[in-house]
C-alpha cells in the first residue's frame, strides 16, 4: 500500500501537504494521536500550569450509589465536577445514545459552585433531557463501566491483588464515556464566548477535561467498592492506574460533526501540518539531540504496538505496525551511523526520511512517524494548539463576482465536480436522526423514504453551483445567484467562508454505498481527540481509550510525567 506525501525535500524547505493528498479519506483515517490532539494538548497545558485536582467529597455506598465532588484549580480559574453514581443495571444498557442506563453522570461547572447551584445540578442532571444546567455549566456527561474490566479489577483489589493485564489490557479502561453535552446544550455555556484567559477556551478542551475526570472517578470507584468488599483490599498500583485511561465510543454522529465544523477541521489540520512541516524543516546533523529524541520516541511506539492486546476487526493490527516502525528505526539509525538517508546526504533529514518511506509503509505507520516528529518541535505545536479558537459561522459575500466563485469552486472542489453522481449507488444512502434519542443513522433511502436528509452531499451541491454559475456573466455579483437559487445559498456561503482554509472538507461522497463511515470517525477520534487502541465495529462504530498512560492528578500538580503517551505495559 502506498500513500501520498509532499516530496519537496530536494526542492527547498518542506511544506505542508497539498489538500488533494491530505484530504483523501484514507489518509485522514490514518492520522495518529499527536501533541495537537485535544486530549494531549489538554495534558500539556495542565502539566505546564500544574493544575490541582482534589476530591472534596466521596459519599457512595457499597453498591456505588451516591455522589462525589471534585475540584480543579488552574492558575486562572476553578472548576467543580459533581458526580452522581448509580448502581449497575443491565437493563437498557448499550453504548449507543439510545441507551437508558448510565453508571455515572457528572457536570463540569465553573466554580466554586454555590450551594444553590450544587442543589440545582443534583436535581437537574439525572433528568438529562428534561433537565437544565446552571449558568456556569460547561459540560454534562455520563459514562458506563466496562463490566468485565471493572468487575475484575474490583474483585482483584478486594483480594489484595492487582488486576490481570490479560483482562484489563484488552480494553485499557474501567469506564467508557457515553455522552458529553455542552456548548449550549441543556443551557450550558457557549464556548465561543468563553473569556480570553479561560483555560478551556480551546477546541474540545472542556470535553477532554471531563473525560479525564471520568477516569479519576472510575479509579476512585473501583478502590471504594473493593474496600467495601474487604478490609484488606489494596489500591490500584500507580503503574496500572496510569495505564488505565477512560474509554470512548463514537459513531455516525461524527460524520455530521465533520460536515458541520469545517473551520475546526481546517484549522486543526493546518496546525498539524504546520507543526509537521516545522519538524521536517529542521536541518539536523546525525549527532543532533533531535535525532536521538526521535529514536527514543520510535522505541516507545514500537514497544507500545508490540504489547498491544486489543483485537481489531478491519483496522491494521499493531504487530504489523510494530514491524514497519522497526524498519523506520533502522533507517534513522543508519543516518546516525553514516549521515545518509536513502543513499543521500539530506539537507532536511526528517523530510527525506518521510519521503523515502511514503511509498513503502502503511499510511498508519507514516502517520505515526509524523506524530513523533511533531513531538520534536513541542513549542511550535503548543503555540498552534493554543490558537485553536474556532467560529463556525458562515456568511455570504454577495459582491463577489461569479468568476471568483467559480475559481474557488474549481480549486477547492475539483474532486466533487469530478465525482460521478449518476454511478450506481452514488446516491443510495440518507443520513437522518431518529425520534428516539436523536441518534444519527445512515440507511438506504428506500428503507426510510420519509426521513429528512441531514448529510451534506458536497458533490451534488458543488455540481449544482457549477451548473448554475454557467447561467451568469462572470462579472455579475453572487447576490444574483443567491437570489435565483435559494436551495444553494447554504453551500455558497460555505464555499465563500472557507475559501481561505486549505483543509476543510474531506474528499468523500457520504451518500455513496461505498463510503466507509469508520474512516471519518477515525479522523475525529484518533486524530483530533487523541484516542488510542481504537477498535472498529461494523465499519461504523469505534471504541478506544483516552488518556492511556496519562499522568495521575498528583503528577499533574507536580508538573511531571510530560512524555506520557503510548505507555509501557505495567510490570506483572
Amino acid at each position, binding site marked *: 500500500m502506498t500513500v501520498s506525501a509532499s516530496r519537496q525535500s530536494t526542492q527547498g524547505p518542506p511544506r505542508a501537504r497539498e489538500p488533494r493528498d491530505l484530504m483523501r479519506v484514507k489518509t485522514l483515517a490514518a492520522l495518529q494521536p499527536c501533541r495537537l490532539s485535544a486530549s494531549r494538548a489538554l495534558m500539556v497545558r495542565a502539566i505546564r500550569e500544574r493544575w490541582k485536582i482534589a476530591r472534596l467529597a466521596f459519599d457512595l455506598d457499597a453498591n456505588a450509589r451516591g455522589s462525589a465532588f471534585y475540584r480543579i484549580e488552574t492558575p486562572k480559574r476553578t472548576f467543580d465536577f459533581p458526580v452522581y453514581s448509580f448502581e449497575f443495571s443491565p437493563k*437498557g444498557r448499550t453504548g449507543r445514545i*439510545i441507551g437508558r442506563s448510565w453508571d455515572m453522570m457528572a457536570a463540569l461547572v465553573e466554580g466554586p459552585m454555590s450551594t444553590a447551584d450544587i442543589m*440545582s445540578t443534583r436535581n437537574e442532571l439525572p433528568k438529562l433531557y428534561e433537565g437544565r444546567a446552571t449558568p456556569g455549566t460547561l459540560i454534562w456527561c455520563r459514562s458506563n463501566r466496562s463490566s468485565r474490566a471493572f468487575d475484575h479489577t474490583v474483585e482483584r483489589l478486594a483480594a489484595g491483588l492487582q488486576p490481570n493485564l490479560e483482562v484489563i489490557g484488552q480494553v485499557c479502561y474501567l469506564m467508557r464515556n457515553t455522552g458529553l453535552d455542552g456548548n*449550549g*446544550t441543556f443551557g450550558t455555556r457557549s464556548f465561543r464566548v468563553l473569556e480570553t484567559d479561560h483555560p478551556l477556551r480551546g477546541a474540545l478542551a472542556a470535553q477532554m477535561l471531563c473525560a479525564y475526570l471520568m477516569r479519576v472517578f472510575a479509579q476512585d470507584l473501583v478502590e471504594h467498592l473493593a474496600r467495601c468488599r474487604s478490609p484488606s483490599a489494596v489500591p490500584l498500583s500507580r503503574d496500572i492506574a496510569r495505564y488505565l485511561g477512560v474509554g470512548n465510543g463514537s459513531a455516525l*454522529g461524527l460524520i455530521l460533526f465533520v460536515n458541520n465544523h469545517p473551520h475546526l477541521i481546517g484549522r486543526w489540520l493546518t496546525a498539524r501540518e504546520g507543526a509537521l512541516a516545522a519538524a521536517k524543516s529542521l536541518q539536523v546533523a546525525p549527532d543532533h539531540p533531535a535525532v536521538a529524541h526521535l529514536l527514543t520516541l520510535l522505541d516507545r511506539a514500537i514497544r507500545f504496538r508490540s504489547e498491544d492486546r486489543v483485537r481489531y476487526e478491519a483496522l491494521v493490527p499493531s504487530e504489523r505496525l510494530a514491524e514497519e516502525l522497526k524498519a523506520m528505526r533502522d533507517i534513522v539509525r543508519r543516518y546516525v551511523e553514516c549521515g545518509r538517508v536513502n543513499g543521500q546526504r539530506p539537507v532536511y533529514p526528517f523530510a527525506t526520511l518521510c519521503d523515502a518511506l511514503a511509498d513503502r509503509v502503511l499510511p498508519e505507520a507514516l502517520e505515526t512517524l509524523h506524530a513523533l516528529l511533531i513531538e520534536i518541535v513541542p513549542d511550535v505545536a503548543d503555540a498552534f494548539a493554543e490558537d485553536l479558537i474556532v467560529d463556525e459561522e458562515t456568511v455570504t459575500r454577495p459582491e463577489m463576482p461569479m468568476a471568483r466563485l467559480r475559481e474557488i469552486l474549481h480549486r477547492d472542489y475539483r474532486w466533487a465536480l469530478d465525482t460521478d453522481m449518476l454511478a450506481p449507488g452514488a446516491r443510495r444512502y440518507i443520513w437522518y436522526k431518529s425520534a428516539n434519542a436523536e441518534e444519527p443513522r445512515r440507511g438506504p433511502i428506500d428503507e426510510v423514504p420519509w426521513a*429528512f436528509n441531514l448529510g451534506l452531499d458536497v458533490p451534488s451541491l458543488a455540481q449544482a453551483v457549477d451548473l448554475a454559475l454557467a447561467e451568469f456573466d462572470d462579472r455579475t455579483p453572487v447576490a444574483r445567484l443567491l*437570489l435565483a437559487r435559494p*436551495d444553494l445559498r447554504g453551500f455558497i456561503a460555505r464555499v465563500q467562508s472557507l475559501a481561505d482554509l486549505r483543509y476543510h472538507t474531506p474528499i468523500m461522497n457520504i451518500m455513496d454505498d461505498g463510503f466507509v463511515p469508520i474512516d471519518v470517525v477515525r479522523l475525529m477520534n484518533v486524530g483530533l481527540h487523541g484516542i488510542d487502541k481504537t477498535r472498529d465495529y461494523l465499519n461504523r*462504530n469505534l471504541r478506544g481509550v483516552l488518556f492511556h498512560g496519562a499522568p495521575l492528578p498528583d503528577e499533574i500538580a507536580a508538573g511531571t510525567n510530560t512524555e506520557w503517551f503510548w505507555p509501557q505495559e505495567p510490570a506483572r
Partner: protein
Amino acid sequence: MNAHTYASEEVTLSVRETRMILERILLTTGLPDGFVPAVGNSILYSQAAKLGGLAAFEADVDALSKAKLPTVSILGEDPEGIYVDANGNHAWLVSNDALDLVLARYRTGKSGDLEIRNALVPFELRVMEALAYRHGARVKVTVSADGGTLQVLADGLSEPDAVMDEALRHGFPVPQWLWRSLYDRSGQALTPDSIESRRHAGPVMVDAEGRVHGRDDDDTDFELLRGSRADHPQAREGA
C-alpha cells in the same frame, strides 16, 4: 434537549438550541434544505433584536411554508437604488436576499439603497438591521405599509458580530410554553423509530431473523434492538 424547569417559568435558550429547533421546523415546511439556515438566522436575529422572534414564528410558521421562490423579483435598478417585489413573502424569507442585493451594490461603488414592496409582516424587515452585523455592515430600515426601504450606513467594519455575541453570552429568555411548543413541533423532522431503522446505527445489529451481527463486548441489552422496548420517550438526544 427539552423544556426546563430551572428556577422559573421562563427558560433561557442558547443560540445552539434555538438554531436547532428553528432549522428542524423549517425543514418540515418544505423550504429547500439549503435555504433553511438563512431563514433560521432571520428568526434568530429577530429574537435577538427583540422583534417578533420565536413567538411570532410559532404563530406564523405556516406563512413560511407558503414561500414563493425566488423570494424577491427585481423591479428595476437605477443610480438611486434597487427596487424589489417580495412576491407576498414573509419578511424573514426576503431579508437575506434583500440585504445581499444592497450590499453587493454598495460594495461595487453604487448607492446602498433598496426599496421593497409587497412583503408580508413588513415590520420584520427590521431584522435586516441585526443581520447586517453578520456582514460587518450597518443598515437602516424604514418600514412602510407593505414593505420598506433599506439604506447602508456603514460597511467593512472589523469588529465581531455584536448581535450574535450578545446572544451567545446571554441567550434568549422565553416562556416555557413557547419552548415546549416549538420543541415538540421540531420533533417532526426526526424519523420515527423502528427495528429496521435501529439497524442503521450501532456496533452490533440484530437482523430480521434475530441473528446478531458484529461483536458485542458492551453488555448490550438486546431487547433494545429486538423491539420489545422499541420506544422509551425519556431518551431524546445525544452526541
